[in-house]
């Protein structure tokens, strides 16, 4: 792929804008709260930032790849695996996060349970965010190396340097402002590709005609695991993805929840994930459709063909970049590549700012130096910003040497995340849940996940605890979803049992933290769309309609 001066100019304009935004916003940062949790954002900004924080490279490149590999079933990651959880977060969980005045998700756990539960969540989250950021950086450098022949180190230095400049200067506000700009760039930069691609395959009817029936159906192939390319059945999809993993991510991951927590008031905080659900429901048409178009073009003998690796296997991860290179002329190619870079940087900045907050509030202030001045915490937060990015860079280089270590890290973090939603569900809706119950439940869920992975195999992975695996899953996806269900169930059951066996917390300590002991905010009055529940029901109705379109 060859870029011209115009393409490089567009990339330079974009980088200039994101750095300028960071530098201009620097003067708005006057204290640690302004740097880490600025609660003054308008609703439209928090809503777009909410989905943009998740619109990293994994989503933009990964969903196009999954579209080509699994077909329209990939939409389950949105219509089953995101929207219901986002609505649940807005309607039921935000009142506790926002109303408790906690500055972070781990801090809510400290208020609701105890310090050991907070420490477990804070340390695992902080480690996960910087390593995820490093993986994002590694992915970007590899992409630029393959597509443009750029040096690995130059790509790392450029992306990490730009993200450091704007997050160091403007903190959370700068990260969120840039996430919004990145959202529009990604959507508007990829949309022309979808339009041109659809024209090439003969519209939506042509697309359907060129693809096998199973690639254009989302629910029918789930009758049995063997009937679809994902190798999962409807129960695994609904329970594993639609409940455990989806609610575990969207309702408890501070990276996304933080975007709602910076809203100016409770009602806006509640509506942030729900309003975000509307564009999120339509995102498959931007990120998955290119994968389907690529497959249809390949099958119909077009000059565009899906990329193939050196060993002859399909290189699905390069679906979107190769489509951009095939269809986009000079100029628009620069926009497309800038959009890809923006998605990597958006993911990295989101991770780094979430890391800053958790490190400063939940680790440093909580356990290292509790009673320092605000000026000191602001200094620590800026230092954490630099430190987080440096660890990300080190992780990216580590990935070049030990690719398996990255797989292992992601696996371990998956074990920690899967049971988390059970802890929050019980914590927010069952006042009898105790700190000991939550902590032992989380450990048990994590262990259950590790044991399930150790005794089963799928696609050659897992089974590290035995020479004779107990069960072989038809696909890695089926294994991951089953592990999530088992981990969640173990955490839920152990939390309930241990809570009943330990001393209950007094009701007075749980006010504002648990359903039933928290006064419900007045949401009546005003237009229907200012009511989170009404708005949430409309979002769910839209999702049902979208699911029905591709049954």
């Amino acid at each position, binding site marked *: 792929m060859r870029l011209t001066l*115009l393409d490089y*100019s*567009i990339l330079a*304009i*974009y980088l200039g*804008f994101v750095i*300028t*935004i960071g530098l*201009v*916003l620097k*003067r*708005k940062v006057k204290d640690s709260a302004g740097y880490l949790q600025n609660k003054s954002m308008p609703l439209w*900004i928090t809503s777009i930032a909410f989905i943009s924080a998740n619109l990293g490279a994994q989503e933009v490149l990964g969903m196009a790849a999954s579209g080509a590999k699994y077909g329209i079933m990939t939409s389950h990651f949105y219509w089953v695996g995101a929207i219901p959880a986002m609505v649940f977060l807005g309607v039921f969980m935000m009142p506790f996060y926002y109303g408790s005045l906690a500055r972070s998700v781990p801090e809510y756990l400290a208020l609701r349970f105890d310090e050991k539960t907070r420490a477990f969540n804070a340390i695992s989250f902080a480690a996960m965010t910087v390593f995820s950021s490093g993986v994002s950086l590694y992915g970007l450098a590899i992409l630029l190396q393959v597509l443009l022949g750029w040096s690995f180190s130059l790509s790392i230095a450029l992306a990490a340097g730009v993200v450091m400049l704007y997050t160091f200067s403007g903190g959370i506000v700068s990260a969120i*402002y840039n996430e*919004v*700009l990145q959202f*529009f*760039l990604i959507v*508007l930069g990829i949309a*022309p590709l979808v339009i*041109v691609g659809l*024209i*090439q395959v003969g519209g939506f009817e042509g697309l359907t005609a060129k693809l096998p029936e199973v690639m254009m159906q989302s629910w029918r192939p789930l009758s049995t695991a063997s009937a679809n390319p994902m190798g999962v059945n409807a129960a695994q999809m609904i329970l594993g993805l639609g409940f455990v993993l989806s609610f575990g991510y969207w309702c408890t991951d501070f990276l996304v929840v933080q975007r709602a927590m910076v809203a100016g008031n409770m009602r806006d905080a509640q509506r942030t994930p729900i309003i975000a659900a509307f564009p999120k429901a339509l995102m498959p048409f931007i990120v998955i459709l290119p994968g389907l178009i690529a497959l249809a073009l390949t099958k119909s003998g077009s000059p565009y063909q899906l990329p193939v690796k050196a060993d002859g296997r399909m290189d699905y991860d390069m679906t979107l970049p190769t489509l951009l290179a095939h*269809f*986009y*002329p*000079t*100029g*628009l190619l620069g*926009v497309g590549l800038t959009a890809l870079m923006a998605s990597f940087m958006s993911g990295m900045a989101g991770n780094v700012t979430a890391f800053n907050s958790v490190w400063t509030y939940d680790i440093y202030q909580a356990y290292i130096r509790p009673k320092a001045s605000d000026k000191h915490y602001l200094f620590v937060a800026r230092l954490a910003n630099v430190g987080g990015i440096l660890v990300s860079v080190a992780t990216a280089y580590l990935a070049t040497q030990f690719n398996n270590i990255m797989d292992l890290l992601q696996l371990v973090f998956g074990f920690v995340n899967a049971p988390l939603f059970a802890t929050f569900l019980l914590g927010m809706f069952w006042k009898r849940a105790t700190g000991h119950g939550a902590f032992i439940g989380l450990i048990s869920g994590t262990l259950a996940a590790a044991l399930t992975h150790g005794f089963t195999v799928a696609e050659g992975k897992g089974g590290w605890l035995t020479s004779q695996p107990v069960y072989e899953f038809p696909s890695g996806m089926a294994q991951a979803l089953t592990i999530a269900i088992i981990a969640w169930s173990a955490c839920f059951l152990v939390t309930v049992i241990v809570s009943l066996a330990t001393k209950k917390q007094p009701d007075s300590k749980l006010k504002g933290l648990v359903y039933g002991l928290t006064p419900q905010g007045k949401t009546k009055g005003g237009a229907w769309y200012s009511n989170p529940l009404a708005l949430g029901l409309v979002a769910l109705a839209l999702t049902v309609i979208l699911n029905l379109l591709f049954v």
Partner: protein
Amino acid sequence: MNRMVEDLRFCIGAFFLLVGVLLAGHGVIVGTMVAGMNLNLFTGIAFALFGGLSLALSLRAVD
């Protein structure tokens, strides 16, 4: 000026207007056709319109 730049709509508007004008200009001068469309021209106009709208909203708020 700083107040305007602090308004996110101004930043978004300025960026898309600038990129839109560049794309549309290139589309007019070179006119590369993709799937029967002058893709740079159409996308450039769409970007510029979006950018202009965003800028107008920002300027109205400052006034």
